């Protein structure tokens, strides 16, 4: 039980630090703080979808149902965090750009990711038979993850976007005030642990459901 409370205290502490201790970025002003929420959510999206892809590949290789449980749970959670990132991004766009949605390359690509994994869940729902569902969704999950790096990393760098680049990969360094960087990294770590907690909960619930169905 202890580590769950640690996650709670960790995230709460960095939330307080983000408000009371970290400075604001000049142009962004009060909207700076979406950074501690929006980017960790986007990071967990990529992490969860990658986790889903890895377990899908493992399922195809080992044919063990436990990998399918992991892949399905990860895709659902990835979609959830993707919605969180989209909504927080949209609210920020309203504050900074004046409208909730205007098809900036960043908005376009995250919308495509949403559609991709909504299609994955629709596909899962339409296949009868546990083994067949696991196998075919694994095939789709692997091919879908081909599109994710393109959408998340390549497209926004090719097309002109107004989206601020906090982490500039091309220069390989982070342009941030050290206090902002500490809060930001803390939130990244906190979100990652929160994700793995949710993931394990989801998988255990799936297993309980299966056991209930069998008995």
């Amino acid at each position, binding site marked *: 039980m202890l580590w769950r409370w640690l996650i709670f205290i960790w995230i709460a502490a960095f939330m307080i630090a983000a408000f009371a201790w970290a400075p604001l970025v000049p142009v962004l002003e009060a909207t700076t703080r979406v950074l501690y929420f929006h980017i960790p959510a986007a990071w967990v999206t990529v992490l969860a979808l990658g986790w889903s892809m890895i377990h899908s590949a493992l399922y195809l290789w080992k044919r063990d149902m436990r990998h399918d449980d992991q892949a399905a749970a990860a895709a659902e959670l990835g979609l959830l965090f993707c919605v969180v990132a989209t909504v927080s991004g949209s609210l920020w766009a309203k504050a900074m750009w004046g409208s909730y949605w205007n098809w900036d390359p960043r908005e376009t690509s995250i919308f495509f990711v949403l559609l991709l994994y909504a299609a994955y869940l629709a*596909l899962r729902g339409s296949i009868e038979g546990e083994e067949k569902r696991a196998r075919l969704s694994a095939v789709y999950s692997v091919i879908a993850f081909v599109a994710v790096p393109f959408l998340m990393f390549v497209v926004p760098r090719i097309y002109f976007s107004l989206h601020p680049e906090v982490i500039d990969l091309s220069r390989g360094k982070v342009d941030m005030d050290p206090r902002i960087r500490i809060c930001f990294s803390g939130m990244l770590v906190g979100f990652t642990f929160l994700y793995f907690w949710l993931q394990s909960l989801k998988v255990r619930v799936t297993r309980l459901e299966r056991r209930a169905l069998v008995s």
Partner: protein
Amino acid sequence: MPRSWSSSMAAVWAVLRKECRSEWRTRYGLNAALLFAVASLAAVSFSAGRLGERTDVLAALFWIVLLFATLASMSHAFVRETENRTMLLLRLVASPTEIALGKLLFNLVFLLVVEVAIVPLFMVLMSAPPPRWGSFLTVLGLGTVSLAASSTLVGAVIAQTRGRGALFAGVSLPLLLPVLAAAVSGTKAQWIGVGLDGEIRLLIAYAVALLGMSLLLYEHLWED
């Protein structure tokens, strides 16, 4: 069963020829695609009027017509096998990868035939300015490869689901949206006359990634 390269190629070729023959016998898919394309082109061109100068709109309309015409008809390559219950027979004579490669080649040929009909029709009906053929055909070709690769894989998956054809467009489209975005912007760029290296590089990378991943996945499409 491991087989030699040449006999695998022979199997792929046999699947391709069988596909072409059974398509030619009914021309069901081809008719559906062409009819859909002509009808949607007519609808678009009379409701939008002359768009000669609006190359941004033209590029978007061209790819949407092409994409939907193919999505409306391309799922049947595998659905047909399931409906006629011939999939088992096919599986006896060829490995999953050979079948899928044969179907992939068939889908490529199918798309080329559809495009040969759509492109001139589009140019005439929409009174589009003449494209720079080199760039235009490069974008079109790369888009076609991605379209065929994703349709083959998704088609094989969809044929085994409850609704069969119903989900095909919904599941294919998100996979093809990056292609659509890059192809539309590339087509627009060649009309305006600006460089389109970024789009072409993106299209190549995406087509290669899709094809490479598909090759690894084909053998898992059917249970032995």
